[in-house]
């Protein structure tokens, strides 16, 4: 088996995640989709690391994880505070950005 | 490498940050601290600018006190500064005017009266910090020798100016003054941004064109050297397009007719001090840049477009003066007078004679000083009565003779009375234009009659005649206000009778510019043997 299959897998997961962001309305699920996209790219990075034979890709994946953690912490906090004020976790209910 | 220039630019920048960070509060003591700090910073800047002027050797190389710090290496951008004669005097002008503007606007940023006006704890800090920020950016623009650095600061200047115009009015507007002010601020921003965008395209274009010929740099001296030595040859069509890109931005900023309509709004709605910053300092960057960048980088295109530009500036001279005559609002009148004067400056630059360009450079300085005097006194007047309309005044000289006297001096300087500084520059511009384009020179001379009309009509309507009821009891100039006006008047007189102090510095740079465009002055038809006027026949 060619390890490039890992990349195909990553592409597939990424696409599923991206579609999820577009389709789902529950903010928490939306976030999970984002996490899936990040994981997909991590998988690609790890595979690239293997491809090139150095560890820089893994380092990058590591940083991605850290940043993802930060993002989740802040994002979930935002969801909680939105839920508190609007009693809804649907992103379609927060549409004040339109004029 | 000396650090004088970077210090000159850094001090006001640091001062802006410091002033903005001072503890907030609406107490009088807090505000006074803020103002004192800002004033001290601007005074220090003035000291540094004087040091620059003193260290500048008129007979030395074009760019002196140069500094260079690598910035974006991959694009050949470096933060490089260098003072030439023209930049030095304009930097000096800036440094002189800013403390005076601050002093003049001492109370402009005090929290306004309670009637619904914008009130903020950080209002005073903001006002003075913004002025210092403008000063820093203008200084960098005058001293930058890197096209990209110049561009960045040329544009960045808009941000503090936008807030100065939009946030701080003169409390003399009508009921919808806030709306008018934000209109003026947005108009200012949009006009200048448009110009800046076009210029950005041209800057990039220049880099690409230069890069194609192995001159991938933004350094102005390197580019001009390459152009004048023929190492860099820009195709005429491309050159014209790039020239127009640069010129458009500068013509908006300057402003040149018909791109001027933002100026009366901006000057009319902002405080007198901000108006001075606009017309006397910020706009000068436009004319300065025409002289330095347009001519130096695109000599052939400059020559191609010179006649057209001269015609536009001529229209500006006459048009600005005529519209000024028809104004009902004091500050707008001054603004249109400035448009007329900018016509002279641009005319002097593109006449491409040594008299014209030296005159134009002096004009920038003199116009800065004289308009500052005129505008600031007008501001003092307006602050007393709370109206900008000429019709609301009359007979002020009876109750406030010193105010009226200084206002008259400002007006006389504006109409270029000999003995006052603007005369020297205006006459040089006229002579310089006349020797190459006689007809344009003669028509421009009508400008001096029109200038007399608007300046004296304004004086007559506001200051003379029977004392109007609304004016009775108006206090004369206070000590602070005198301290603002006195240096300006003194400078106007000094530069009027002894302009050599400036021409000595300016002339070599002008000659260098002229040699860049390969222009020599037209020789007189029948030159006299000795031009020394001292000899009797």
């Amino acid at each position, binding site marked *: 088996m060619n390890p490039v299959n890992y990349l195909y897998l990553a592409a597939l997961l990424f696409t599923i995640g991206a579609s999820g962001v577009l389709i789902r309305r529950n903010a*928490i699920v939306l976030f999970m989709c984002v996490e899936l996209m990040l994981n997909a790219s991590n998988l690609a990075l*790890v595979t690239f690391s293997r491809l090139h034979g150095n560890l820089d890709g893994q380092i990058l994946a590591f940083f991605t994880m850290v940043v993802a953690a930060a993002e989740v912490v802040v994002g*979930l906090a935002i969801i909680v505070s939105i839920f508190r004020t609007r009693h809804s976790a649907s992103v379609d209910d927060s549409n004040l950005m339109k004029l | 490498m000396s650090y004088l220039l970077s210090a000159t630019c850094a001090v006001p920048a640091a001062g802006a940050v410091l002033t903005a960070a001072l503890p907030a509060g609406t107490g009088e003591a807090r505000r006074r601290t803020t103002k004192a700090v800002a004033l001290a910073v601007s005074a220090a800047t003035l000291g540094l600018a004087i040091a620059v002027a003193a260290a500048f050797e008129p007979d030395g190389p074009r760019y002196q006190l140069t500094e260079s710090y690598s910035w974006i290496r991959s694009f050949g951008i470096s933060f490089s500064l260098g003072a030439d004669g023209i930049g030095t005097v304009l930097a000096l002008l800036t440094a002189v005017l800013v403390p005076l503007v601050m002093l003049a606007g001492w109370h402009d940023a005090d929290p306004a009266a309670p009637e619904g006006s914008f009130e903020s704890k950080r209002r005073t800090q903001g006002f003075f910090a913004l002025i210092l920020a403008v000063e820093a950016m203008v200084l960098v623009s005058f001293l930058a020798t890197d096209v990209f650095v110049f561009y960045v600061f040329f544009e960045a200047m808009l941000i503090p100016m936008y807030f100065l115009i939009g946030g701080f009015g003169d409390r003399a507007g009508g009921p919808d003054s806030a709306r008018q002010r934000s209109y003026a601020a947005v108009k200012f921003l949009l006009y200048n941004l448009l110009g800046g965008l076009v210029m950005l395209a041209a800057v990039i274009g220049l880099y690409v064109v230069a890069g194609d010929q192995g001159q991938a740099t933004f350094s102005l001296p390197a580019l001009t050297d390459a152009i004048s030595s023929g190492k860099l040859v820009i195709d005429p069509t491309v050159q014209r397009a790039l020239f127009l890109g640069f010129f458009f931005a500068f013509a908006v900023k300057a402003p040149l007719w018909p791109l001027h309509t933002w100026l009366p709004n901006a000057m009319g709605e902002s405080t007198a001090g901000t108006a001075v910053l606009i017309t006397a300092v910020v706009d000068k960057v436009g004319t300065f840049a025409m002289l330095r960048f347009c001519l130096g980088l695109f000599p052939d295109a400059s020559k191609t477009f010179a006649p057209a530009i001269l015609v536009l500036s001529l229209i500006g001279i006459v048009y600005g003066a005529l519209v000024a005559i028809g104004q009902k609002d004091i500050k707008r009148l001054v603004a249109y007078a400035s448009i007329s004067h900018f016509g002279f400056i641009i005319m002097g630059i593109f006449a491409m004679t040594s008299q014209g360009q030296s005159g134009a450079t002096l004009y920038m300085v003199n116009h800065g000083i004289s308009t500052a005097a005129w505008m600031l006194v007008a501001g003092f007047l307006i602050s007393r009565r709370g109206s900008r309309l000429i019709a609301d005044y009359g007979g002020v000289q009876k109750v406030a003779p010193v105010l009226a006297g200084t206002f008259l001096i400002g007006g006389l300087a504006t109409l270029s009375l000999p003995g006052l500084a603007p005369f020297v520059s205006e006459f040089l511009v006229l002579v310089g234009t006349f020797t190459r384009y006689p007809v344009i020179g003669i028509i421009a001379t009508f400008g001096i009659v029109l200038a007399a009309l608007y300046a004296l009509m304004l004086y007559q309507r506001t200051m003379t005649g029977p004392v109007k009821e609304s004016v009775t009891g108006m206090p004369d100039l206070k000590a602070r206000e005198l301290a603002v006006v006195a240096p300006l008047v003194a400078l106007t007189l000094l530069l009027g009778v002894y302009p050599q102090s400036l021409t000595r510095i300016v002339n070599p740079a002008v000659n260098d510019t002229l040699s860049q465009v390969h222009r020599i002055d037209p020789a007189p038809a029948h030159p006299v043997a000795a031009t020394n006027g001292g000899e009797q026949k």
Partner: protein
Amino acid sequence: MTSTGEAVQFWVLAVIAVGGALGMLLMKKAVHSALCLAATMLSLAVCYLAQGAVFLGVVQIVVYTGAIMMLFLFVVMLVGVSSEDSLKEQLKGQRVAAVLCGVGFGVLLIAGLANAKLSHFTGLSEANAEGNVQGLAKLIFTKYVWAFEVTGALLITAAIGAMVLTHREKIRERLTQRQLAAQRVKDNIQVPPLPAPGVYARHNAVDIPALLPDGTVAEDSVMSTLRERGQIRDVSQEMLQRMAELEEATADWLGRPSSARPQVAGPRQALETVPTPTKEEAE
């Protein structure tokens, strides 16, 4: 080329991963989505391990699946375990466009990968010679030390940010019970205590509303969280039905004429009635 073992492992894991992802996408309830995602993550962790990224694999399991997914679950709990998306799309064309974009994107990526010449894999045996963790550590603390420090700052900022975001500013002093009581009297909206939930022999649960004398539902008797989620279990209809039957049987036994029989509360209107105004609404 990889070993057969890895190939087998890959195909198994790939199926689990994609299945998990699709499950996450399609499950109605958030908690199910979270579980699906956890499955995907775990299989990815194994993929990492298989590819020589030992450290990352472990981190993926411990930090990602262990910590982050738990965080998700906590929030799901906070927001409502069983709250479910109505999968009906409200934005016009959104779903079609999303699917189109997704498919297009996937096709593009895969086409791009197929075009790329990725035949030679160096492998990590050399890089991992000193051990994967040591190799990573060497890089992190030399070449990427600056990024590492910045990331640290980012994490702290994020932590503080989360605290700030979820922190409720205490604007006024907390009221004592006595003050609350006084306030209730003053407001005169709900002076006595709220009704207790309906407790019947069959149902000893908080989600069953009490019935008012006229047979309608007293919504106040159910806690507000359940009310928000719409998880009130209404059993009144059944009860009324029984009462009616009882009445009927009694009447039959007594032989009352049909006109003299008492009427039990008619068609229910309980949940349609306007609920008692809550305090905020009253204000």
